[in-house]
Every structure is written in C-alpha cells, then in structure tokens.
C-alpha cells in the first residue's frame, strides 16, 4: 500500500541538515556579539554580552516564567477568539458576497491603527486584566486569518463546484465538502503569519499596562537599567513564538496528510 515514511534516524538527520545553516548563522551572530561586548569596552548596562543575558535569565528564571504565563494565556485566548471570529465572518462573507464589500474596508482600517496608540487606550477602557490583551491579540491576528480563509474558499476548483451542483448538492453541502477543505492550505499559511503577530500583540498590550506579563517585565527591567533582563525576556518571547510556529507546522502535517503522502507517486503506467 502507501509507502511508509522514511525511518526515524533518517528523518532526524534530514531535519539536522535543514536546520544547520540557521543554527550556524545564529551562532555566528552570538559569537560576534559576545566578542564585541567583551573587548570593545562597552558597558554591560548598555550592551550586555549574550553570556551575561543567559546567566541572568537563569538566575531570574522564576520571575521570567511567572511573567511568561500571563503572556501565553493572553496570546492563546486572544488567538482562539480571533480564529473563531474569523471563521464565522469568513463563512458569512462566503455566503453573502455583498457583506464583503461592506466589511472589508472596516477591517483594513483596523489594520492601519498604530498599536502604540491603541494599546494604552484599550488598557484605559478595559483595565489591567486579561481583557485588553485578548482584544489586542485578536485585533492584530483577525484580519490575516479572515483574508486567508476567504481567499482559500475562493481557491476551490471551479469544476469541483460544478460537479457537486450536478450531483444535487446545495450551497452548504458544497461549502463543507469542497470550499472548506480547499481553504486548508491558505488557512495554515494565515495561521503561520498571524501566530507570530499574536505574541507581539500580547506583549504590546502588557507594555501599556499590566500586573504581570513579559511586556511589563521588559518595561520594568528597562526602567531599572537592566538591558540584560530586557533581552532575556525578548529571548523568552522569541522562543515562545518559535514554539507556536512549530506547533502550527506540526498541526498542518497532521491535518493535511495528502500534502505529504501525495508527493510520493505510486501509480504506474496509463
């Protein structure tokens, strides 16, 4: 039947070969930074060496974890809300095309709002709790998801639609059988883009005012002249984004097996 995927060790070897250039370039950058910070005479309160950032991150790991948790929570809840809203609206737009012309300008304007200006306002209106963070995360991730989904529905092969109609399928059936699965590739492309915005959105909201979170942690560290701790928090948020990005890639592999298996032709002749 279907040829099995390559064996585990070979898979890891392939992964390593793919990751090697990225690891090397990042490593080189860190080495250069380390050398510059140590030998140029620059003060660690201006530019700390990566080794110092790492050391301080380890020393302050409890505080960092403590502050990362609210950020993760805001990111995930905000992103979930945004996904739900994007799904609901994309379906509405798909079924009632005129809505698209009515709504899209509003959403485009929402994307032009400078976060620096909006974040403090949202905090002012909704307080220091979870709510404003969730809203900001949703604001920055909603539109890319909506556009991805609507475009994905429209990428449905015309002939599949014609065939389903000839089979007697109604609009809802066609949507479920053809338009939704056709949008998957676009959905995951949108997911990868907006998940990277999501963490930044949450940190921005916290920066504008929060009891706890990576954003407020960065602000406090900066005010205490501790750039090493600012950078440690930046490292945590970067790691967080990378993990979420990796998760979406994994999810895509699981959700779209045909993209992987389909690449290995098995049919012979005619």
């Amino acid at each position, binding site marked *: 039947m279907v040829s099995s995927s390559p064996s585990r060790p070979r898979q890891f070897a392939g992964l390593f070969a793919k990751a090697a250039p990225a690891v090397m370039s990042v490593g080189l950058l860190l080495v250069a930074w380390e050398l510059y910070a140590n030998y140029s005479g620059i003060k660690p309160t201006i530019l700390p060496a990566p080794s110092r950032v790492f050391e301080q991150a380890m020393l302050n790991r409890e505080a960092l974890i403590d502050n990362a948790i609210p950020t993760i929570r805001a990111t995930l809840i905000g992103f979930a809300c945004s996904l739900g809203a994007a799904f609901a609206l994309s379906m509405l737009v798909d079924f009632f095309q005129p809505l698209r012309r009515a709504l899209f300008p509003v959403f485009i304007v929402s994307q032009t709002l400078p976060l620096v200006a909006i974040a403090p306002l949202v905090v002012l209106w909704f307080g220091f709790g979870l709510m404003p963070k969730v809203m900001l995360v949703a604001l920055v991730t909603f539109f890319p998801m909506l556009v991805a989904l609507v475009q994905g529905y429209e990428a449905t092969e015309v002939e599949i639609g014609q065939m389903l*109609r000839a089979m007697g399928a109604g609009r809802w059936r066609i949507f479920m059988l053809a338009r939704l699965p056709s949008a998957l590739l676009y959905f995951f492309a949108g997911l990868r883009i907006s998940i990277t915005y999501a963490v930044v959105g949450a940190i921005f909201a916290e920066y504008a005012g929060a009891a706890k979170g990576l954003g407020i942690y960065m602000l406090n560290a900066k005010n205490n002249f501790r750039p090493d701790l600012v950078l440690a928090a930046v490292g945590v948020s970067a790691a967080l984004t990378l993990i979420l990005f990796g998760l979406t890639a994994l999810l895509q592999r699981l959700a779209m097996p045909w993209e992987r298996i389909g690449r290995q032709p098995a049919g012979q002749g*005619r």
Partner: protein
Amino acid sequence: MSRLELRHVRKAFGGLDVLGDISLSVGAGEFVSILGPSGAGKSTLFQLLTGAEHGEGEMLFDGMPLDDHGRHFAFMPQRDALMPWRRILDNTTLGLEVQGVKRKAARARVAPLFAEFGLAGFERHFPAQLSGGMRQRAALLRTVVQERDMLLLDEPFGALDALTRAAMQRWLEQMWRHHRWTALLITHDVREAVFLSDRIYVLSARPARVLREIRVPLPRPRDPSAAQQAGAVEAEILDILLNPQPSKGHDHD
C-alpha cells in the same frame, strides 16, 4: 425511444449568442457525441442540462420537461475534479454521499468496481499518487456509480497525453459495450468521437448550431480492422468543420 431531446435550445451570455439553435436527441443505451471547435459553447450545453444555467427552448427527458428537481444526469467535468484531500475510495463515493447514502453502504457499492476500472489496490491512495489515466478512470467510476439515467462526459480525456488518451478511449469503448450507458460526450477530437460514438452532432463555431448529424457506420467492438472506414468518416467530419456552409454572414477561420 429517445431519452433526452433538445428542441431549438438557445443561450446568450450578456448579448453574446453562445448557443444559436441546438436540436438533438439521445436514445436509450446510445453513445452520442457533440463535436465542435473549441469555445463553441459545448460546455454551456451541459450547464443547461445540469441546471447551472437557464436558456431558451425545450429540453425533454423521457418526454417530460427537464427541471432542477429531476436529476437525470451524472456529470464528469473536464479534468478529473478529484478532491486532493480525499482518498480514491472516498472520491468515488462522493456522488452517493451527496445523494444521502451512508458512508459504509456507499463504500460497499463502489468497492467491487475497482477491479473493473483498473484501480484495485489504490483505494487508499490520494489522487496525487495516481497517473493521469488512473485519475480519469477514478473520475469515471465516481460518475457511473451514481446510477443516473445518463452520463454527461465533458472532454474527459482532454488533459491526457496522446498515448494515455488512446488507451483510455479503447478502455471506455470496451466498458461501454458491457454497460450500455446512455451517454453524451463533448469533444473536439474527431478521432475520439468517431471511435466511441453511435452518432455525432457536428457543431459550428459560436453561436453554435448543428451543422450535421452523422451516424457512425462502424461495427462494434471498434477495432483497428475498421481503420479505413473510420478514416473516411473522420475525413468527412473534418471537411464539415473546416469548410462549413456560409451562414448568416458569420465568418469562420
């Protein structure tokens, strides 16, 4: 006797006449082809039949006017329209699923046909894993298993390479002899039309009209021994297509 009958069917899109005046009929168990130049509106005819578009004139099935409720046709579109995310088995059950047949029952109905369609062992494969010919056979399987009164085939082999196409034509002719489907085929391939059909309607360029109705005199099974006779019919059709009678000041190229 004739199952499908069209009388003076016309269709215009925004002032552009696509179908000029089409009258044709298809009898029970008959394989009929519509042959015409590209862009002559042949596919539009199928859109009228499947209810995707509405035109003027009369369309009768078994003497009754066609409406959207009577679903008489199983439609096979150009290219295979297989869903890349469904395994071959689930692609072939699609029509039954839409009809409301339970998945298990649909699979049970489709499974025995895989061998006959040369797809045995590929039930669990995704379409991307199959060759062009196999994909077309899967698409045809999906079409015939719906057990509708009539097959509508819209240039089903148009996207295949020449060798695969020839193999598929032979295979389809042989399948048709076993099953005697009532079928209407759209094509612009003269040889394909002659090889497969009992009758051929030759259409003009847009606005499409029936230039000639040709009864193919070849015996079945269609085999290479009748090649000379087939060649004569093909030549006659080509002549009609390339030198149409001048009509209503319309120029042809």
